[in-house]
């Protein structure tokens, strides 16, 4: 119940194409779903995030689609660029513990390579 399942493990996309990464969760106590981008040797950086009362959120070329009934959410990167090549992690905030702020449960990550 504490897992966030992410797929695919790796993804190769041509420049200009659409990159799609999917995540699924089981715990209904999750109430915030961020996506993080990580470049080699760097810490995860917040890319975009969504709450479950919204089905879609778009920021520039990045869109999160959220399906609350299916407990699934996905990241779409439109017009993918070589500079988007990085590892992407989906995450979910777990508020079931005693801490008021919750903590993040991460997926296993997707290594995206965008070919020129």
């Amino acid at each position, binding site marked *: 119940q504490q897992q966030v399942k992410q797929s695919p493990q790796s993804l190769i996309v041509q420049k200009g194409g659409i990159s799609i990464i999917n995540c699924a969760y089981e715990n209904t106590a999750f109430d915030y779903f961020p996506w993080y981008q990580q470049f080699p040797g760097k*810490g995860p*950086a917040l890319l975009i995030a969504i709450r479950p009362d919204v089905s879609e959120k778009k920021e520039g070329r990045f869109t999160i689609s959220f399906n609350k009934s299916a407990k699934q959410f996905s990241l779409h990167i439109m017009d993918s660029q070589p500079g988007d090549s990085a590892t992407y992690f989906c995450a979910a905030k777990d508020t079931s513990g005693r801490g008021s702020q919750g903590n993040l449960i991460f997926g296993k990550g997707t290594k995206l390579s965008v070919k020129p």
Partner: protein
Amino acid sequence: EPEVTQTPSHQVTQMGQEVILRCVPISNHLYFYWYRQILGQKVEFLVSFYNNEISEKSEIFDDQFSVERPDGSNFTLKIRSTKLEDSAMYFCASSEIGVETQYFGPGTRLLVL
């Protein structure tokens, strides 16, 4: 733009030794976290800290680990007696109260030999 900073960037230690990893959270943030990432694997939550006490901890955060805010700016993670399996990248993160966004530092790569 304010950033979370971490020192050292790399640390090599012998098994059984104590290590202290240091973090300076963003100045107006009051919630602090430690996560770890074993090479090639996902980021895992260790502990969260608020108001000078542990707010939440995972199963990974056993008695070998401790956290402290020794002064108004630093937040530390101590591993008392390191094991080979403690080798990982350790990330510090911070957030404002009531705001979900967690900002991560660049990490400390710990290698236990």
